[in-house]
């Protein structure tokens, strides 16, 4: 049971992102601001930073691929960015102390990196023609605020789960 709890949670978050976007009231959407949930990368980062970085990168790889196939139909962008950001954050954490505030800030940084990376890539392959100033004001900022709320609400349960999962994996060995 313990073994499949975390993968199940990840699958749930994966589906939940789409449900979230779909059931957000139309007014919030129809306003100019664009809110993008990046809950999956937050969960991956918590697993990387609190648990095992190898596990985190592995999860990043598999869920990145799933995200690309199911949601965007352009393979490669999330497949590349999820593990890369997990790796960068794991490197940053080596010089910082692991406490919940620092980890939260680093995951928010990870979300910002992901958003910027995806914007740049989509800009390069001509999937968007949004100007950077419009992007920063109406998309990046609201998105960061939304994900910060998510981090504040769920950082503690995510931390506990990741720690437990890794402790369980270690015991298995």
């Amino acid at each position, binding site marked *: 049971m313990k073994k499949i709890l975390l993968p199940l949670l990840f699958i749930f978050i994966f589906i939940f992102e789409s449900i979230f976007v779909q059931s957000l009231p139309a007014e919030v959407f129809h306003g100019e601001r664009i809110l993008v949930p990046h809950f999956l990368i937050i969960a991956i980062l918590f697993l990387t930073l609190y648990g095992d970085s190898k596990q985190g990168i592995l999860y990043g790889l598999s869920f990145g691929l799933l995200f690309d196939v199911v949601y965007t139909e352009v393979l490669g962008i999330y497949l590349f960015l999820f593990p890369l950001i997990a790796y960068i954050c794991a490197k940053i954490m080596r010089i910082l102390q692991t406490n919940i505030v620092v980890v939260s800030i680093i995951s928010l940084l990870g979300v910002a990196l992901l958003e910027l990376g995806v914007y740049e*890539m989509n800009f390069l392959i001509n999937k968007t023609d949004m100007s950077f100033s419009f992007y920063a004001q109406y998309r990046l900022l609201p998105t960061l605020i939304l994900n910060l709320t998510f981090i504040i609400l769920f950082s503690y349960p995510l931390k506990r789960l990741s720690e437990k999962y890794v402790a369980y994996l270690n015991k298995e060995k």
Partner: protein
Amino acid sequence: MPQFFLNKRLIFLLISIIILVALIGFSLRDREELTVPEQFLKDTTGWIQNVFAKPQSYVSGIFGDLKDLQNTYSENKELKSRLDEMAKLEADVQQLTKENDELREILDKKETLRDYSPIQATVIGRNPDRWHELLIINKGKVNGIKANMAVVTANGLIGKVKSTQQFTSTVQLLSALDPTNRISAEIQGKEAGKESFYGTIEGYDEERELLKLKRIPFDAKIEKGQNVITSGLGGIFPEGLPIGKVVDVEPDEFGLNQTAYVKPGANFYDIRNVMVVKREMAQPDLSDMIDDEEEEL
């Protein structure tokens, strides 16, 4: 320098960038169909999404009902005032359809571009990253859905089917930026008998949230509020699906054509149930339309 290349991580990064570029290139190609593993993954997640979609639509339905209750009174007033017009309109429509059928029979012309058969579907997912405006619906090849079919809601056209799997399909919204996404459209004359103009819907203005209707003749006189419908001349969509209303007209950069900005009739954000529209009239074969004389030369 040799040390620089011996760095394992750097080589790893370079290789992954090469793979990234190759994968993006592969998926941006004009693919007729997704690969089998992709279809399998999409169908599997589609199944899970289906499980979640039911309670989700139930809960959001309750909230929607509550919001509707708030403005029932004013809505009721407005609806009552329209009811009288409706009765007359209905009688007119019935008469016209009958007359139309009779005339058609005389002419012995059975099929029109207008005919289509709808397939009902429920939205079970939406792309959360919001760059590629894609929806996932719960009907697929088994139900007779094919790529490039038009997708409509009660209020108008919302997009086309991008790819299909066995049990689910992906819908691309009109608001997605895709240069291949062109729809032949007709601007109806304001009153009956007035001339209507043709153009193609190309692109979406993200900042103003309006569709761009390009290639309208420069001498066309277009006013605000004229209706825009699909013309059926593109060969894929049926005729007469409502798209929206003209908001603004501008001459294009060279002054040879005009560009109209169209406010879409359908809301692109609050979509739960859609209809996939299957055109009855045969699609023209592309090879028929291209002159093959050139090849003989």
